[in-house]
């Protein structure tokens, strides 16, 4: 059972980082392979804030999310918006270029080494709950992941802004004609996606580590979550992330010999069974 819980927790972490990509790639149709760079930025903000400035962990995480959202908004205004109409291949080239720049800047600013993060005492260790050994930090991740999933689902599915966003993406011209400030909707959405990446990056430092190669190392995992979940679907991403997390951890526990294959096998099988993802729109 502990294994299943661990799987859910690592799935949640995957979800937290990847959900931002589901927003930009899935909802805004922008192939943003620089997503990991935003997550890395959030991670560095969190490390600096908590490590050097002595800000407590939780506010540091919030700060990381906000700072990354601000960076996202800035870059959207300066660069990304010019490429909304470009081909996906151009978007790929552009965002990979951005990743290279981000990695170089990170190495210049922080060196190539891993960044340490110190969790507060109350997030460390394990608790015993009805025969289960539960890592406190993992429980925290699960809670946070659920909260983010619920909040996002509400925000995009139910609120007025969500309706505007969907309208702006599907038919920008019509949306504009309806009096929707499409530009603003895009900035806000992009900032949201980046902010979520920053949040995920910040809470991910403990388990995934943080160094300048972060954006490329985990890129494939983020893409897997979005693709398996069905691009643009928040609940889909959540389910996909948890599914992958559980399969990965359980597979490593029961069949450690084939540990590395599991995640890809799950992905390929899922995509062959459901080419549009679990909950994807056709």
């Amino acid at each position, binding site marked *: 059972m502990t294994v299943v819980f661990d799987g859910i927790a690592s799935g949640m972490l995957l979800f937290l980082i990847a959900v931002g990509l589901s927003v930009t790639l899935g909802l805004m149709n922008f192939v943003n392979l620089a997503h990991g760079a935003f997550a890395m930025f959030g991670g560095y903000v969190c490390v600096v804030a908590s490590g050097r400035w002595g800000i407590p962990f939780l506010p540091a995480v919030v700060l990381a999310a906000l700072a990354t959202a601000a960076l996202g908004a800035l870059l959207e205004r300066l660069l990304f918006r010019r490429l909304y109409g470009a081909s996906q291949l151009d*978007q790929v080239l552009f965002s990979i*270029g951005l990743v290279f720049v981000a990695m170089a800047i990170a190495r210049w600013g922080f060196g190539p080494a891993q960044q340490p993060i110190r969790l507060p005492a109350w997030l460390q260790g394990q608790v015993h709950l009805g025969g289960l050994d539960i890592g406190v930090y993992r429980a925290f991740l699960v809670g946070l992941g659920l909260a983010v999933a619920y909040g996002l689902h509400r925000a995009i599915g139910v609120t007025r802004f969500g309706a505007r966003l969907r309208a702006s993406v599907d038919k920008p011209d019509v949306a504009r004609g309806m009096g929707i400030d499409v530009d603003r909707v895009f900035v806000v959405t992009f900032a949201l996606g980046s902010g979520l990446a920053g949040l995920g990056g910040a809470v991910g430092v403990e388990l995934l580590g943080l160094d300048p190669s972060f954006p490329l190392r985990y890129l494939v995992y983020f893409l897997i979550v979005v693709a398996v979940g069905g691009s643009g679907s928040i609940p889909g991403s959540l389910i996909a992330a948890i599914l992958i997390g559980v399969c990965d951890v359980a597979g490593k526990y029961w069949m450690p010999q084939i540990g590395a294959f599991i995640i890809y096998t799950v992905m390929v099988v899922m995509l062959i069974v459901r080419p549009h993802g679990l909950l994807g729109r056709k």
Partner: protein
Amino acid sequence: MTPLTPTSSDRAGPAATVDLAPLRRAARPRALEFAFWLLPVAAWFLFPENLALLTQIAITAIFALSLDLVLGYAGIVTLGHAAFFGVGAYAAGMLSAKLGIGDPLLGLVFAAAVSALAGAITSPFVLRGTGLTRLMVTIGIGMMLFEAANKANDFTGGVDGLQGIEMTPLLGLWSFDLWGKTAYVYAVAVLFVVFLVARHVVGSPFGLSLRAIHMNAARMPALGVSVDARLTAAWIAAAAIAGIAGALLTQTTQFVSIDVLGFGRSAEILLILILGGAGRLYGALVGAIVFVTLHHLLADVDPEYWQLWIGLVLIGIVLFARNGLMGVVDPFERLLARKETKR
């Protein structure tokens, strides 16, 4: 996708069944092309100390050509193309290291065959989905192959590389030397042949139907074209060419390590092709030349932060020159084309 800008072979597009004149015109080699192929000859004399790098460029160009067939012409975005490059590299390596057959040309043929087989096996999985799904399946296949080669450490040599590859002289005449002279001529010759074949294929009705599928897959069955069969054929052909590129790398370096299968190689070749301009054969060649040279120069000047500069270059190209470097040539091409039709 943005509409494809008209290039030489494009213009033949929809009218192919009616009037074949534009097709024939496109198939005719042009002065600019002759000039281009003088480059490798000039390079031989100008940079005799950089033949190893130039060989690398030629191999990369073959690999990019292969990707261009599937991405630029058939429209399949893949991030797992190194799978076939790697299969070819290992096939050529095993032939020498395990079976003791060191003839380069034989190795090339063997590698192409094995890679084509790998292409045939994987094609049904890849062609099933669309867009992002397809992309992810290619990544998945690539990664699984990488892990498999890593697991079979004792057989493949894993990260330490396959040992004991020895090449016999090319055609029994020229052995592979330290200056890389034989390797360079060999690689460029293979590149030229592959290019000619690719050029022929792209200009043929088959190539045109591929482009048509790329532009509007739904309409093709109505025209009596089987989409899946054509895509499968393109996929297998591209796999074989990627395998040739991989085999060349093995033969010229006499070494195979697991990174031939790595995700990084798949991503890099995609960058190279987009950089040069997908959907045109010279895009693949120009992309390979520019990227590898740029990488080499930047890494020499600034070994620590070359990534920063290459990243800025990529961003700049996207912002100021859409559709890759060859996109820059478009306006001139159109001008030339107009002159030609007037004549």
